[in-house]
Structure formats: structure tokens, C-alpha cells
């Protein structure tokens, strides 16, 4: 079996480009609620971009440079925008019951994304190298230790936390975001609760 040909066939069948990047959407997709998801994605891209600048100059830079402090502030406020948009997106999808009609994995990946975002932000707070990071690290260690993970995931170990923050968590988030978007596009936007899909033979909605 030719793996590459097989992959081509599966992708052509399961994820045609007109579903991946559609040029028309259902007319009911007209509420501002639909922008929370794309705002979360845009914030993540901004976080990566500002994070790359901060990482390139090193963790001490922003303490001694006005330009560095500005980039830190941009990173700091974009985190707030990221979580604000993500939480609104999550609750909007909850009240739209967006997991209907076979979209349960999209919801599951979305919740995992939210859960992983929390330690991603935490490792950023403890990598700041100021009193804030000292305090959060010594307070947070009790929670990690109580749950039995503090010996490995040591908030007081700057090198480990910095590595998690600038590489491991962004990589995991990027993979999950990619998967989430592919699932969203694969299934399309869910229909309104009051307008379910037509039931086909066998009684199963398609």
C-alpha cells in the first residue's frame, strides 16, 4: 500500500478544501458570538509573536529595557484578551449546544484547550523573574505538591518553567488549536437548536 496515496485519498474524501476554507456559510452565522473563536485564535497568534520577541532577547531583557517592557505589556494584555475571548467562546458554544450532530470531539478538544491554557499562562507568570513570579511559585507549589506532581512540575525551577512556557505549552496549544479548527471545518457550523437537520432513512439525522 502506498501510504502517501492513501493519505491523499483520505484527505480528499474527509477534508476537501472547500470544507476547510469555505467561501459561503449558513445565513444564520451572522451573530457577533461567532467572532469569539476567531478572536481567540488571533490572540494566540499575537501571543506567539510577542513571545518570540521576548524569548529572543532573553528573560531579563524586559526588566532593563523600555522596549522590552512594552513587549512584555503587549504579551501581558494579549493573555487577558486571549482568555476573555476563549471564555466567551466556550460559554457561547455551551449555550448553543454546539456539540450536537456529531460535534462532540470538537467540544472535547476545545475544553482540553482551555484546561491546557491555564498552566500555559501559569508558567508565564512564574517565568517573569520578579516578586510576582516568586510569590506565585511559592504559593502554587503547595497545590502542585498536594496533587503529587510538584516533584516533577516544579514551579520554583525557573529553567523547567521557562522551557514549558516558551516551547512545550505553545506547541501543545498549537496542535490542539489546529485539531479544533479542522474539526470545526470538517463538520461545519452547527445548526440552530430550533432548526435540527432533516432526518434521513433509518431515523438518524445527517
Amino acid at each position: 500500500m502506498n501510504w502517501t496515496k492513501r493519505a491523499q485519498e483520505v484527505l480528499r474524501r474527509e477534508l476537501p478544501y472547500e470544507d476547510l476554507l469555505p467561501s459561503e456559510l449558513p445565513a444564520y452565522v451572522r451573530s457577533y458570538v461567532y467572532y469569539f473563536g476567531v478572536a481567540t485564535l488571533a490572540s494566540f497568534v499575537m501571543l506567539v509573536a510577542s513571545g518570540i520577541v521576548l524569548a529572543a532577547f532573553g528573560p531579563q531583557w524586559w526588566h532593563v529595557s523600555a522596549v522590552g517592557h512594552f513587549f512584555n505589556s503587549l504579551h501581558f494584555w494579549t493573555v487577558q484578551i486571549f482568555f476573555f475571548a476563549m471564555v466567551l467562546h466556550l460559554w457561547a458554544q455551551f449555550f448553543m449546544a454546539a456539540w450536537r450532530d456529531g460535534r462532540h470531539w470538537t467540544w472535547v478538544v476545545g475544553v482540553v484547550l482551555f484546561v491546557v491554557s491555564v498552566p500555559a499562562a501559569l508558567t508565564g507568570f512564574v517565568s517573569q523573574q520578579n516578586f510576582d513570579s516568586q510569590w506565585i511559585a511559592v504559593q502554587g507549589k503547595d497545590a502542585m505538591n498536594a496533587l503529587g506532581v510538584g516533584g516533577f512540575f516544579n514551579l520554583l525551577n525557573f529553567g523547567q518553567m521557562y522551557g514549558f512556557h516558551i516551547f512545550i505549552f505553545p506547541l501543545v496549544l498549537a496542535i490542539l488549536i489546529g485539531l479544533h479548527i479542522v474539526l470545526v471545518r470538517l463538520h461545519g457550523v452547527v445548526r440552530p437548536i430550533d432548526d435540527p437537520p432533516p432526518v434521513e432513512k433509518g431515523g438518524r439525522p445527517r
Partner: protein
Amino acid sequence: MSDRQRRYYRGVAMKPDDLLKEFTWALGIVLVLGILLAAVFSSPDEPTLTAQRVAKVEPSILAGTMLRALSSQSAIAQYGPPYNGLNENAQAIGGFSPQVWAGVQIPVNAPTVFVLRPLSMATALSPRLQSALRAYEDASGAQQQQWVARVLKVLPRAKYAASGVVLPQGSYGPLPAMMDGYFQLARSGLLESAINQNGSVYQTDFTNALLLLQGQAMGAAATPLHMLGEQWGMMREPDNYPGAVWLWLYTALYQLPPYNSSSAADLMVGLTIGGLSVLLLLVPFIPGLRDIPRYIPIHRLIWRRGADK
């Protein structure tokens, strides 16, 4: 559009859309908003709390920290896993204690790590400290603890001068000289470096130095910044900047019974939040929970009947 989606959207009016343009607009708006917030509000950067600053501003706290470390009565000496094997002090709910199961993974011998080893590094610069440290280490454990207990008793009446710590008259063995050496080390700014010293030029793990000041010293510094746990400090930054506001529920649990009076609060809160996260994850599969949106018709504000056609 694929056949699958065509079947799903049967009877639904479609309209032209441009996802790439929408994403570009979103990126632009987030960029402008981020720049505006950064330019107007900046971001907090409270300097680190150092032993040097504690020695100057709160010398009694540093003296207490040193003596409690020597007596093995410090919070870290009594902590349990992952720092030492005092399993009885670990957080547990009945027999359920992941902290105990994980075991000692970051061993910290408080007297050695926080006091004796840093002082031994400074002995080369101070013959008085060298002989004091030798006398302390040569004494029996009972004798050492007697000296420490005596100093702890008179500590509230101690005076802190530039030349050293002045204790009321008494028999404290070599401890006054050791305290002077400890304060000199702290005031010079070398104490954390001595505590963290791992025999290498390179160092990225500051666990031990952070643990030294983790109790009273950091608590005293965090209080005016409104960052204590009971001040909802987990979700805020210094100067009332927003912090991890998404942790509001996690923070709120610490304020409520039975969490706020439990010795296993961290474990209980962690398990509660973990359980709620799993519940949120499984919403699509749980009858009743997945039907909530049908009964709270917020969806009708999003999908207005007739407006989509």
C-alpha cells in the same frame, strides 16, 4: 461544499463569507487593542524580594527564618514530600494522598541548605565565623537545639545593628557569631547565590533560595500588594493589575467552607476543579447536562428565528 455538509445544510440559506479576511481583521483588532492596553496601562514589575532587603527592612524575620531552619521547625523542614519524608504532614483526605505516593523528589535538608552550607562558604572570609561554625558542628544535637531555643526565646528583644545582631545577655554558644555571619552574607547580596550553589557556573533552578523566604518574609511583602490567598491574590497581580482572572472559581473555593478550614485545602480544591473540568469535558455525553441549553434559551438571542432566511 462536500456532499456530507450539503446534506446537513439542506433547507438552510447560505451566504458568501470570507474567513481569511475575518481572521486578518481579528488579528488587526487584537493587535491594536493589545498595543493600546500596553501603552496606556503598561504591566506590573515589582522587584524580587531578596534576603538583602529582608535583612534591612525586616531583620527579625530573617533571624527567625535562620533559627527555625536550624531547629528544623521551619515550614519547609516540616513540609513532607517532595522535600522530606514527614508523610504525616502531607495533605491527605483519609488515606488518599498523592503527595505521599509521589514521595521525596526534591530533598531539602533545611539546616544544611538554608544555613550551614551558605555559612561554610563564607568562613574563608571570616576566621570568627569559621571557629563559630566548627564549634556548632562539633556540639551534640541536643546542645545545638538548646542554643537555638534560647536565642528564639529572646529574639523579640534582639537589636539589629550594622555590626551584627545584639542579643540580651545569655549563653548562646556560637550562635551570635553565626547570626552575624548570616546577616553579613544576606546584606552583601550573596545569601541566595550561596544557597543555590550547585558546583557549576550555570544555574537555572532557584528552588532552594525561593523556599528560604517562602513563609513569613514573602507573606509580609505580599500583604500590602493584596496578593494573599484570602485577598483573592491568586487572580490578581501587584497594584491591582488583573492576573489569572480565569481562576476565579479556583480562587473562590479557597474562601469557602469546608475548603477554607481544611489542612488539605489544596488537595480538595484541586480535586474539585479537576472533577468539574472532567464534567465540562463530558457535557455532550451526559443526559440532562447536555440539555441545559434547550431550557435556557440564550440560543434564541444568537439565532433569531426568521432572521436567517
